């Protein structure tokens, strides 16, 4: 038994070698499966983990899922260093090489079209957090309001302060998104991250991805850096360069464009 085929990505043939110590899922170094002008990057994985029932069970297991997602991302990352990969969603598994080839043939046109669009480009992730202003507001509230009227006035002030900080965060997020979009070929807004999930302090008010040519990346990074200290109470975080994960929905973006 040779196991199943886990596909990480599809890309065009590239000249450079992958990192030699790169280990994929199941401890298997990623292999390159060439079919027509495309390459599928594949690991041989055991049925006991990747057949339907065990895979379904594993996906409910946070530790397994985390390790698998990290390995998947490591392989995509290694590919991004040498070419422009088209990342597949986690858990794309075929019975054998011929299953992979059949899929590549069926989706050949799509792959070429998306690859044309992302070729030579990377994705940068930018998140903006409004840092909690709780501590700044606290001293303004006396322990005991002197009268009912005082009490109501304080309540109104607090509500207004919350609205103000929300508005400030929104306008900052809009401003940074507009500016970065102007320096990117495409952008996507993702749902804000849950603080408990990301472990990041503050409220995530912008979670965006930008498609940027490699050649323009240095400039893009500098632009983000300059915005970092722009507004007190706002934190800007940059991640990347990622493979163009957020820009693989072909039909979607084509509909958006006039």
């Amino acid at each position: 038994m040779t196991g199943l085929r886990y596909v990480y990505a599809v890309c065009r043939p590239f000249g450079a070698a992958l990192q030699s110590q790169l280990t994929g899922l199941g401890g298997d170094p990623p292999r390159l499966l060439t079919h027509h002008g495309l390459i599928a990057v594949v690991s041989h994985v055991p049925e006991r983990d990747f057949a339907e029932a065990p895979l379904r069970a594993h996906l409910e297991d946070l530790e397994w899922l985390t390790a698998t997602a990290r390995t998947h991302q490591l392989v995509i990352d290694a590919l991004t260093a040498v070419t422009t990969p088209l990342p597949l969603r986690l858990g794309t598994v075929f019975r054998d090489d011929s299953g992979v080839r059949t899929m590549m043939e069926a989706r050949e046109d799509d792959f070429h079209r998306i690859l044309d669009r992302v070729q030579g480009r990377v994705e940068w992730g930018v998140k903006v957090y409004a840092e909690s202003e709780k501590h700044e507001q606290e001293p303004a509230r006396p322990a005991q309001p002197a009268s009912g009227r005082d009490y109501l006035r304080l309540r109104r002030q607090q509500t207004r302060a919350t609205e103000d900080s929300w508005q400030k965060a929104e306008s900052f997020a809009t401003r940074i998104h507009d500016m970065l979009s102007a320096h990117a070929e495409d952008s996507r807004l993702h749902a804000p991250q849950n603080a408990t999930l990301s472990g990041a302090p503050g409220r995530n008010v912008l979670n965006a991805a930008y498609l940027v040519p490699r050649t323009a990346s240095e400039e893009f990074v500098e632009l983000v850096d300059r915005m970092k200290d722009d507004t007190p109470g706002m934190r800007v975080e940059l991640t990347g360069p990622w493979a163009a994960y957020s820009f693989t929905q072909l039909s979607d973006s084509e509909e958006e464009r006039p």
Partner: protein
Amino acid sequence: MSMPSRLPDPYGQGSGANLADILERVLDKGIVIAGDIRINLLDIELLTIKLRLIVASVDKAKEMGIDWWEDDPALSTKARRDELSRENAELRERLARLEELEPRRAQEEGS
């Protein structure tokens, strides 16, 4: 094929990119292809995984001192309850003080 041009050093990748950044991309983005092994990530992804992650990481977040949402009435029903009962107590106390100042009038109104 030409080599890709130089990229700035990775930002926050590896240790810095948080788990949410990675899962968000690997599970939610990327091209969807039906493999031979039929797994519908949507079945699991949006509900189970996210819920589990949130549940699993609440304790960890608390350890790290990230618990501000517990005091935020907009995010926590407990904080909302606490705030209401605090307001209630304050109002009751103030009422009692007023009644002490004007015992007769309070009595008349009470009857």
